[in-house]
């Protein structure tokens, strides 16, 4: 399985993602934002970081960079595109997934482990994951998911919510919402579910001695689903 990680000026989780993808069997290529052509890929990842210094709005500049037109075309033809953290912010700015990510409700940069509940398994990202709840890591200042009421209705009708913030047992309540996101939304799909944007970082949970193993579960499962 071939993957591509796009590096924007200011990306800082691109190499972590590279390590994670390779660890679980992807043949990964790093792709520079100013390139026009996407290498042949089964998965494209927009990594976390602070592309363009978060100027204007997080992800807004990166969403207009040269490589993104190829990524958008790839996504529109059914290609798997996953945006993590800043990558999620870039995805909403391209319009590939609905909504926006606002400043966290309490204006704090949040850096901690969280639990997320998988809302939908009828997709290549979460199909066959045995767990209902995964422990991932978040580190962001703008992760407060917002969309209009009409968009929310559409997202819910199409089952586009991927994961919600919850507690260890999977309870989705206000008190387990770290950033003020509508309905505790931590990640969403496009309608066709080939594009996933999420704030948590699975690539930070792939080593028992450093973190947890739930990221390993996620990546192992993902590569199997793509085969």
């Amino acid at each position, binding site marked *: 399985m071939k993957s591509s990680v796009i590096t924007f000026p200011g990306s800082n989780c691109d190499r972590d993602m590279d390590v994670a993808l390779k660890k679980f069997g992807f043949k990964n290529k790093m792709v520079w934002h100013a390139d026009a052509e996407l290498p042949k890929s089964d998965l494209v990842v927009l990594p976390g970081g602070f592309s363009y210094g978060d100027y*204007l*709005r997080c992800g*807004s500049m990166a969403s*207009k960079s040269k490589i993104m037109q190829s990524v958008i075309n790839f996504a529109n033809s059914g290609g798997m595109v996953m945006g993590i953290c800043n990558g999620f912010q870039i995805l909403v*700015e391209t319009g590939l997934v609905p*909504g*926006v990510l*606002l*400043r*966290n*409700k*309490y*204006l704090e940069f949040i850096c901690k482990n969280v639990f997320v509940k998988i809302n939908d398994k009828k997709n290549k990202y979460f199909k066959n994951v045995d767990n209902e709840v995964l422990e991932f890591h978040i580190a962001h200042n703008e992760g*407060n998911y*917002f*969309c*209009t009421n009409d*968009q929310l209705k559409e997202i819910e009708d199409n089952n586009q919510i991927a994961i919600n913030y919850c507690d260890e047992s999977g309870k989705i309540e206000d008190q387990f919402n770290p950033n*003020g996101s509508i309905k505790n939304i931590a990640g969403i799909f496009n309608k066709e579910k080939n594009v996933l944007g999420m704030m948590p970082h699975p690539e930070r949970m792939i080593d028992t001695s450093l973190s947890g193993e739930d990221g390993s579960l996620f990546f192992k499962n993902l590569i199997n689903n793509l085969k």
Partner: protein
Amino acid sequence: MKISVIITLKKDVLDPQGKVIHQTLDGMGFNDVNEVRQGKYFEIDSKETDNDKAKAKVEEMCKKLLANLVIENYKIIDPK
């Protein structure tokens, strides 16, 4: 020609920064403030000399980059 653009958050969008500014103003003794909403202001110096054409270009910029229309409104100030 210089054209100014003001970007504001739509009415229903939470503005935590505006809220904190409001609270701080309150603490400083400015007790008569109902609400504070924070926005963005741009000055664009354009090579275009025709008023309408320049405005139309800036409108396109607003829609494509300067504003995110899910959460923000834009207002173009008439060029001088």
